[in-house]
């Protein structure tokens, strides 16, 4: 009976139950070897420095069983759904209705965000989470300029975030400058660093650029960590002043905002102020990006993403174009960093690790590189998802990594959508960027 159920897939491969079982069995065997030592045996350093070990065959058996079952399920799904991996083009009517929905989703989301402090006035947790999400939305939009629009893979974005945060923290604690003076300064300093890094390395292409930016991010972190006299090293900078409403502090003092307005003081005021502050900063990022996209420089960024060689042939100065993208992205990173410093009141190098860069990058990629709404939704999903997994601290990054791999396999162009270039010759739509590997040759 089993041998009779032969179906032929598109690849011409006969797939029956024996085949599935054989494949699942092989997967289970591989899993057994992979996990036998790492999971079957647990080592730990004893109190006197001596290593001890014990066995965990129960866990090993359940994981191997899981792989066996999972392999069967995946193979069945693959038969029912058809071959995965090949990205199908969305039919035009669906695409049109989606874009219609997208047109309303953006404003609706914005209105909801504006109302969040009103609706959740008494729920401190939700407000804090909202601020966190908006910070990542801003970072995502900033990185989107570099990765999504100009197509430069930047693995060290957190360096600019760190530069912004430390600029504000050091200027404010050492010279007592106010947040509103330091904010543009932080952005400018981050942009200068962006240019300083970008100028020599932007001649590199693709993967090399990624690694150099990664190295740069690590250098910044290591310097911050070791330059103890300036940055406080691993102890960080504490006592960073809270932001003021253009000079009016949001505290319980006599000249505080609450006293001036004649209302009763509540610590929630500051949280709500921070919420609207980051919202304004994020919207500024968004607005600048959208406007820039319509300028020649924005068009050049998009052209650069699609085909660098063609760009050069058309007389676009690729170095300057890349440099402006880099500096713009870095500047927004610097703004976000300054905000982060004033919100936390304390910063240390631990907040600026490579994981943070990867998280922001994942938000941009998940959101479908270049799509503003997509990035915002991706930030909401990712940070919300992280909050859901808060109890499972150690498994969080494991799940995050797996999600990144799976998304790349399933929808490499992003889950939520991807932005085609703003200008497009009508006839050229038949070979949109979905269909080619990217014109980098």
């Amino acid at each position, binding site marked *: 009976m089993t041998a009779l159920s032969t179906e032929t897939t598109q690849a011409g491969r006969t797939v029956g139950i024996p085949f599935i079982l054989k494949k699942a069995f092989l997967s289970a065997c591989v899993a057994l070897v992979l996990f036998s030592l790492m999971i079957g*045996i647990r080592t730990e350093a004893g109190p006197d420095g001596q290593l001890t*070990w014990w066995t965990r065959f129960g866990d090993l058996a359940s994981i191997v069983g899981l792989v066996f079952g999972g392999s069967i399920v995946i193979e069945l799904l693959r038969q029912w759904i058809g071959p995965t991996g090949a990205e199908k083009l969305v039919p035009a009517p669906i695409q049109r209705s989606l874009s219609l929905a997208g047109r309303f989703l953006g404003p609706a989301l914005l209105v909801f965000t504006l109302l969040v402090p009103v609706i959740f006035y008494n729920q401190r947790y939700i407000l804090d989470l909202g601020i966190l999400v908006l910070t990542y939305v801003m970072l995502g939009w900033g990185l989107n300029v570099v990765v999504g629009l100009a197509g430069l*893979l930047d693995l060290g974005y957190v360096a600019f975030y760190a530069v912004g945060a430390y600029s504000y923290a050091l200027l404010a604690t050492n010279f007592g400058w106010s947040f509103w003076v330091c904010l543009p300064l932080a952005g400018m300093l981050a942009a200068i660093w962006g240019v300083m890094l970008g100028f*020599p390395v932007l001649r590199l292409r693709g993967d090399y650029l*990624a*690694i150099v930016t990664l190295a740069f991010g690590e250098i910044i972190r290591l310097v911050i960590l070791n330059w103890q006299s300036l940055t406080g090293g691993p102890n960080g900078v504490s006592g960073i002043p809270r932001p003021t409403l253009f000079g009016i502090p949001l505290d319980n003092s006599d000249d505080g905002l609450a006293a001036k307005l004649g209302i009763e003081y509540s610590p929630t005021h500051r949280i709500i102020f921070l919420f609207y502050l980051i919202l304004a900063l994020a919207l500024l990022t968004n607005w600048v990006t959208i406007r820039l996209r319509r300028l020649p420089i924005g068009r050049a960024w998009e052209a650069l993403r699609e085909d660098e*060689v063609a760009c050069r042939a058309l007389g676009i100065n690729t170095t300057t174009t890349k440099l402006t993208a880099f500096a713009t992205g870095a500047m927004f990173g610097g703004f976000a960093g300054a905000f982060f410093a004033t919100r936390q009141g304390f910063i240390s190098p631990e907040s600026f690790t490579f994981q943070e860069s990867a998280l922001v990058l994942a938000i941009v990629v998940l959101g479908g590189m270049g799509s503003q709404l997509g990035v915002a939704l991706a930030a909401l999903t990712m940070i919300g998802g992280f909050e859901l997994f808060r109890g499972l601290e*150690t498994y969080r990054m*494991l799940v995050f990594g797996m999600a990144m791999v799976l998304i790349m396999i399933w929808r490499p162009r992003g889950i939520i959508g991807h932005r085609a270039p703003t200008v497009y010759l009508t006839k050229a739509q038949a070979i949109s960027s979905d269909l080619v*590997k990217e014109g980098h040759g």
Partner: protein
Amino acid sequence: MDYFAQQLINGLVLGSIYGLIAIGYTMVYGIVGMINFAHGDIFMIGGFIALISFLLLVSLGLTAIPLILLLVLLVAMAVTALYGWTVERIAYRPLRHSFRLAPMLSAIGMSFVLTNYSQVAQGARVKPVPPIITGGYTLHEGPEGFAVQLSNMQIMVVLVTIVLLAMFTWLVSRTRLGRDMRACEQDQTMAALLGVDVDRTISMTFVIGAALASVAGMMYLLYYGQVDFFMGFVAGIKAFTAAVLGGIGSLPGAVLGGLAIGLIETLWSAYFSVEYKDVAAFSILIIVLIFMPTGLLGRPEVEKV
């Protein structure tokens, strides 16, 4: 002078370890054209497998150190090679024809998976092992009492590296598999037309790279006497730096670059500051890429439309 000689020895030993990891990067980059970001974590897994199999063998009652080490080496190479194969199968093969950034991002995801997997499986604390290979020679006793030491461990690291490199060079230049690999490196479509199983060849590249990285992991374990779940990240970047410095795609270049990075790092720690040794290594990566993008022994990349 004695101090310098000592640092030279230490640097060469460290460089051998980096060289072994760098080969994995350079081979994969040569054939698939991607940076296998998870390779540093494969090295870390190799260290863990070596540690665990060592513990097991000792508990089983084996006492002959050379036999134990040989068995540990074989187990670590086999299991880690399987890790390399699995990573390629799961995370890279489905993306072979996807857009350019996809494999890179998938590799970053895989690196997170491996790091956190070993943290979950084996705990976050550093795992120490007592020194297994002891003894050594004093090469030169200076007048101030500073002696240049060459430990047996260091001799072993360098010897194992040389032997493996000889085997590996033979594999690439003399065997069927090596020929397939070189063919795939030049033109995958043409190689496939001529009957080379491209998928299998790429898999084998990952397997060999992982096996070499596991040896590096074992050497690291024996030399430094500890492993932890986070050691793959920095070692991985440095080995990649080595591969770039030597000229990515070039096998002798990877070893040469590894030795150079090992020496630079050791000498920097010895004469300048230990805190900034990673900064030195990363700065070299940037400087090399700016002024010598093809590295010491690499071929210039031709830009095609």
